[in-house]
Structures are given as C-alpha cells and as structure tokens.
C-alpha cells in the first residue's frame, strides 16, 4: 500500500474512534437538515381540504371551482363535495374540511359590472393556516380578474378574522415553487432534497478544519517528524491527510443521501449522477484541505482559515439559503464555490433534470480541485523542512 493510503487509513481510523466525528459527520447534518426542511418547507407539505358553496351558479363560480380542482393545486388542495352551505359548515365543524369558500349569489354579475359582492372564506380557529391559505387562494383568483369590485371576506367561526398581516403571510406561503424558480427540472423541489445535500456538504466542509488541525497537531507532537524522517516525501504526507478528508466526506455524504432518502423521502437524483456529484465535491474538499494546510503555519491559523473558508463558501454557495431568489451578483459569486456548483447539481437532479445537467457542475468542481491542489503542492515544499 502506498504510504499516502496508509496515512489516510490511519487518520480515518483515529477519526472513527472519536465519537464526535460520527456526530459531526452524520447526526448533526441530519438533524439540521430535518429542522431546516421543517422550518422552511411547511408550505410545501401543507395540505388543504376544502369545500365550495356555490350560491352564484355563474360562469365565474364555475371557473373558481375548476381552478381549485386543477392539477396546479392538486398537491395543495383537495375539494370535498358539499351539497349545501349547511352541509359545508357541518363538515367544517367536524373537521372534514379546514376551510369553506362561499361564492355568493351575484358574484359573476358583480364581475361584469354590478355591486361589490365578496367571496367569503369560512375557517375555524383550530386551523388558522388553512384559513390564511384559503384566503390567499381566493385573493389570487380575484386578483386574476383584476376586478376591484370583487373582494374576499373572511369569517372565522367563533372569533376574530385573521389580521391583514396573517393574510399577507398566507399569500406568501401559497407560493411553494420559490426554490424551483431557477432549477432546470420540472418536479417541485421539496425542502429536504435541498437541505439534505446542503447540510451534508456544510458539515463535511468542517472536516477540512479537522484534517488541517490534525496536520499541525502531528507536527506539534512529533509524529510528523517521524513520518518525514522516513523516506516519505512532503507531498505524500499532504496527499495522505487530504485523502482522509476525501474518505470522510464520501462516507458522510453517502450516508446522508441514503438516510435522508429512506427516512425523509428526499430525492438526490439518479444514484449514479448523485454519486458523481458526491465524489466531485469530496475531491474539491480535498483540494481545499490541502490548500489550508499549505498556507497555514500553525494549528491556530489552520483552524481559523478553515473556519473562515467554510463559512464564506457555504454562505456564497447557498448551502443554507437557496440562491434562486438572490440577486444576480450573489448567484455569480456562487459560481466560484465548489459547493455552489454541487448545490446547483443536486437541485437540478432532484427536480428531475437530465443527468447531463451535472456535467458543468462536475467540471467546475474538478477544476477547483485541480487548482487548489496544484497551489497546495507548490506551497507545501517550502514548509516541510523549516
């Protein structure tokens, strides 16, 4: 076995004996990905059972009904048939539906120039989100006709109607496709499929700090001298240390992919393509680790540098916040980060893009790897025999 592989194997063995590696490599990213998708992904998992009471019987009421039962909203809304207003209200009371739309008589006529007749959304205090979403849907429909005379009234059974702020929130919550805006695929992106890779990559980037610190710890405790006293070149030591990062990143990300897929129903894309992205980002982290080691002079410097690099890269690359809504300048910056490219690849894959969509991300990450490795190998030679 090549000494570099021996060094990598030794490092991984030490890492695995240290329980914090398992926490940082798997438990933490899993927990945070789950939390993030819970916090930011509720609109996508929310589902509204509703009923329509049509007292209008006009063409506009029919249009509203067909909108609610359209494919566009089928993920979000299920229309439960109701025979009368009383039937709908009893379904609301017993929880069969969470909101009821009442389209009053004269609604269609009003749209053509009559008096103002509001659509009423009946909700319950038990399910305020449902009321908000219902209101937002009605508002969206009304707005579509740009008819100022039409308006939406909200009646929450028992208590006060939702505030304007809540309604505004609901309008925002009703736009589940935010994250999909930029992706090349057609499937809606669910949050866990974004935060799974996002957090997995973030925590493996932490591994760069580990490895870099480990290098300087070996220098401090003399084992590095022992290795360099053997016929082992400085590049080999660096390669061994960096390979450990590769193995760790590979294991951590693969486990993340498998666990989030099985447990949270995440979709990382076709296994081969997702695997290629995982390998590429792991390689890029190897280059990053080597660079941090080669630039730093002390353990403290390495620690600081790795921390700064990790945070700068995850913020620019969009591991925490999707960049689809970000200004163009920020999105351009993301193109300079390997993790930004990885996230782009994963987003494309998980929204159903062709596997060929990852060619560019792969090339970018490999380019990053080559550049950082070359610089590191050049720099390390001057540091070994001080």
């Amino acid at each position, binding site marked *: 076995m090549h*000494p570099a592989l021996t060094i990598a194997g*030794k490092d991984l*063995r030490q890492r695995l004996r240290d329980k914090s590696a398992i926490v940082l490599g798997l438990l933490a990213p899993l927990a945070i990905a789950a939390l993030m998708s819970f916090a930011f992904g509720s609109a996508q998992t929310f589902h509204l059972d509703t009923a329509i009471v049509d007292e209008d019987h006009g063409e506009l009421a029919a249009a509203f009904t067909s909108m609610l039962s359209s494919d566009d909203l089928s993920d979000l809304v299920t229309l439960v048939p109701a025979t009368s207003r009383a039937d709908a209200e009893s379904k609301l009371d017993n929880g069969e539906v969470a909101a009821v739309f009442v389209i009053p008589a004269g609604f269609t006529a009003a749209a053509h120039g009559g008096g103002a007749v509001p659509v009423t959304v009946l909700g319950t205090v038990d399910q305020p989100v449902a009321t908000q979403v219902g209101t937002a849907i009605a508002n969206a429909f009304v707005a579509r006709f740009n008819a100022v005379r039409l308006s939406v009234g909200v009646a929450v059974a028992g208590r006060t109607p939702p505030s304007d702020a809540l309604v505004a929130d609901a309008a925002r919550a009703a736009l589940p496709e935010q994250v999909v805006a930029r992706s090349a695929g057609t499937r809606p992106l669910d949050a866990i499929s974004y935060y799974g890779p996002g957090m997995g990559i973030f925590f493996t980037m932490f591994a760069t700090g580990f490895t870099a610190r480990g290098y300087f710890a070996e220098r401090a405790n*003399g084992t590095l001298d*022992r290795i360099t006293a053997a016929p082992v070149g400085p590049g080999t030591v660096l390669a061994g240390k960096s390979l450990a990062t590769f193995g760790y990143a590979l294991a951590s990300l693969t486990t993340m992919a498998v666990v989030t897929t099985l447990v949270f129903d995440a979709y990382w894309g076709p296994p081969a393509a997702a695997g290629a992205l995982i390998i590429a980002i792991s390689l890029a982290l190897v280059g990053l680790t080597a660079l941090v080691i080669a630039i730093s002079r002390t353990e403290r410097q390495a620690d600081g540098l790795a921390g700064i690099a990790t945070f700068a890269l995850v913020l620019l690359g969009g591991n925490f916040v999707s960049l689809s809504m970000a200004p163009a300048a920020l999105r351009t910056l993301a193109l300079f980060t390997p993790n930004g490219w990885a996230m782009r690849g994963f987003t494309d894959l998980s929204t159903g893009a062709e596997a060929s969509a990852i060619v560019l991300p792969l090339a970018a990450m490999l380019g990053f790897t080559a550049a950082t490795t070359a610089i590191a190998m050049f720099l390390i*030679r001057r540091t070994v*025999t001080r």
Partner: protein
Amino acid sequence: MDGALTLTDTRSDRGADTPAAVLDCAGLTRSFGDRLAIDDVSLRIAPGETYGLLGPNGAGKSTTIRMVCGLLTADAGTVTVAGLPMTPGAPARALVGYVPQDVALYPDLTARENLRFFGHMYRLRGKQLAERVAEVLDLTGLTDRGGDRVESFSGGMRRRLNIGAALLHRPTLLVLDEPTVGVDPQSRHAILDSVRAFGAAGMAVLYTTHYMEEAERICDRVGIIDHGKLIAEGTPRELVAQVAERDRVELTATGNLPGFATACAALTGVTHTDSGDGMVTLLVEDGRAVLPAVLDAAERADIAVRSVQVVEPDLESVFLHLTGTSLRE
C-alpha cells in the same frame, strides 16, 4: 536477526578517519533568526560505533540531530549517510532510525497499530512487517500490551515503544535524542543496555544526552557540545585524560554561593569554579591538599557546608574544565 543488525563488527578499524563512515557531518551550521544555534559542527560515525553528543540544555543537540535526519535544512554544511546525501525525500532516510526526544506516537492507536503504521512509512509490508512488529514488541517487552492503546501506557513503556518504532526497518544508523529523560532507573538501565547491544550488533548509533554517566557508560566516542559548538571529541578515556591531574570538589551548602565560588577561585590550586542549585563545584589540582583552605573560606564567608565530596576525574570535570560551567541541570 539479519540485515543491518548482523553487520560484521568493524570495531577494529573504527575511528574518526575511517573512510566508510556511516554518518559524515561536515561544517553544519544553522541559525534561528539572529541566534546561531549550531556553529560549524563536523562529526563522523563509523559502523558499529556509538557516538555520544553530550551537552547541557539548549546546547544544540536536537538541532544537530534534526539536521542529521533531514528534518531541518542546514544553513551551511552537509550530511551524508553511508555515502548518500541527506536531502528531502532522499533514499538516505531509509537507512536512518530516528528516536525523537519527546515521545512521538499516536496515543489513540494501539502499540501494534503504531508500529505497523511507522513500518509502512519505511515500506515494510505483509509478512515482513508482521514479523518485525512482533520482534520489536518482543524487544521492547511489550508483546502482551501490543493490543492496548498507547494512552494507557506508563511513561517508561511509551519511551520503549518510542525507540522500538525506529528499529522496525533495521536502520544502519540509529539516532536517539535523549531517550532516557524522565525514565525510572530500571527502564533507563534497560534502554542503555539495548543501545549498547545495537552498537555491538554493528549498528552505528548517535546518542545525545546531558547525563555524563550515560555517555561514559555506553559511548565509544563522545563529542561535547556547548552553545552550538563541538568543543571536544574523543573516547571518554581520552577526554578524561585532559583533566587527569584534577580532582573535582563538590560542596552542598547554603549562603551566598556565587560569592563563595569567587572567593574559592582566588585560592591556589583551584582552576575552575561553578555554583548553582545549592551546590558549588571546584576543579582543583589536588583535592585533599586544597580542602582545608576551601573550608576555611567557607567559614569566613558564613557558608553552611552540608557535604563535601572529592570526585575522581570524569566527563563532568571535563565539561567544567572546558566551559567553566557544570553540566548538570
């Protein structure tokens, strides 16, 4: 055993001028910033020879050794091992076994894992590696602890393993940097005996220490280093012969010792004085003759003398003679 350990004993033709030197350092010089740490050090070690580099703290022993092992570049001078230049990544490294001054092992790995790892670094593998690991565990008396993590070892056990890790590849030159520091007397004897045995088996040994008894006991030749300069070199007997006419008088006492030492320096027959650590050391021409005058001076200077010892000439006396300070910590 085979290989380097059974090289024919070349003691008969050993010496500083043997052409087939295992180690040849010429004009080694190294500064750290403004501080000249090593100043033009040259030394040669023949096969099977044990060479002791004796000097106090900060003399430059470790710095010399680090240059010998190719861990530190010299500002000037060269190191050759068995004729091969010691440059980064050079094959000369495969001939050297380096025992660092501080224990350099992975505490979270077992003794066997540590040995296997360092054996790999010297390109040992497979059956050969397994055999050498077993032999070294045996040699260091750690066979039944081979599967335990090093962090569970006593200081002495770590020290032994620290040496063992440098023996796996049967080096031609074994370099030990103060391997007995902080070791109990029993382990120390064991270590010294095994170093003696390595030399007897034909290995060239470079051994640094600041204990003159160690240098006297195991070294064929000794170089005395102080402030980065090699100030004397020879067999222990040759070195001691330089001060053969002198006795060393050691007084343990309380009071103004530096003042007392100065007073003693003025006495006839006293050639060197040093004080420190509740002790005054004198190098005198004749111990018995000068003693009454010394005790007299002590009484006048109000010095309470606890004990007086007149010691036969040894390397300690040589060091005092050469540098004007004593070697002990």
